[in-house]
């Protein structure tokens, strides 16, 4: 404990692995994604609207599941319906960092 005043440093995952909050996960179907189909970085609305900066631009954009809270905005706003919200139970397990399952 070396701090004299309360002053934070930036860190991802301040609230922990917020992916654990999720009840459904977004699953990208590249074959429907406009950017993937066009072969160039176009559209990217899922990236634009993600409140948690969990999506990286791409063809298709990549979704970071460790912190994705599963709000479903990306799926709702995707003009090509390329993202599907799949209940976590359908996956059977939630992956833990390092490969452990629970």
């Amino acid at each position, binding site marked *: 404990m070396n701090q004299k005043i309360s002053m934070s*440093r930036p*860190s991802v995952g301040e609230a922990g*692995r917020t992916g654990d909050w999720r009840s459904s996960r977004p699953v990208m179907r590249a074959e429907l994604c406009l950017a993937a189909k066009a072969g160039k970085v176009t559209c990217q609305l899922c*990236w634009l609207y*993600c409140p*948690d*900066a969990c999506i990286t631009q791409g063809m298709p954009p990549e979704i970071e599941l460790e912190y994705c809270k599963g*709000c479903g905005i990306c799926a709702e706003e995707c003009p090509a319906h390329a993202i599907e*919200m799949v209940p976590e139970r359908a996956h059977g397990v939630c992956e833990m960092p390092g490969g452990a399952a629970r």
Partner: protein
Amino acid sequence: MTCVTELPTTEHLLSGNRACAGCGIGIGLRAITKALDGRMVLVNPASCLTVLGGMYPLASLDIPWINVAFPSTAAAAAGVRAGLRAMGREGEMTVLAMAGDGGTADIGIQALSGAAERDDDFIYVCYDNEAYMNTGTQRSGSTPHGAKTTTTWTGKRENPKDVLAIMEAHRIGYVASTSAAFPTDVYDKMVTARDRRGLRYLHMNTPCPSGWSFDPKDSVRLGKLAVETGLVVLFEIADGVFRLTGRSAALAKSGKPRTPVAEYLASQGRFRGMSEADVAEVQAWIDERWGRYVARNAGD
């Protein structure tokens, strides 16, 4: 208007933060911080944004941030600006004050009015989620007519305070209305604000899944719908010249009827049980205001 793929890809809001799933603040804040390229100091009072910012010793944004007392946002930003200028550091960063609607329309309005009258040199963003969401959805001066909150159990009887008109009445150089559901609109207005001096005020409608009682997936959809109805109008007033922007400008130009507000109201739990008379009253309020905005529109 900047298109999506032209926006900077650098993120200043970090994943794994404490905001609720689907919170509109994160969407808007990403656009805001991109417009300032992170060269900013955020002055923030008690609000949902404080929660998003994280608890000591970890922070969820990689920008300088100063927490301040609830009523004090605009005065604190004025002080930060004065301090930076006194230190010869004014070129280092834009001072951005960002508070919720309660912190702006209610407890913070005195300090904001003072800063506006002095034309202090900073940007003030009110993210308007239309109630005291951080303390559990109590009504604010910005809560719309009919909305149920934990202090208006049968629905608020009054229309929201028009903070944009209040700010315009201070004759500051730039006043803008935007929505977190339109991040490129937020971005463009922030860029405009960034390149001006004096007090610049942005009012950002910010959907709140928990406080408005809707599925988090609908944050953007409902934010857009609010604009389709004319309940939220995208505009800017630069040096006194009023201009509708983006989707609101297109709506006005098309001359087509706006979506009835009843559809918007029916989409959220907070408006459940509103009487037809109340819905009609809200519709009339929107129509009257929309008419005034369109009449003032000096844009194309």
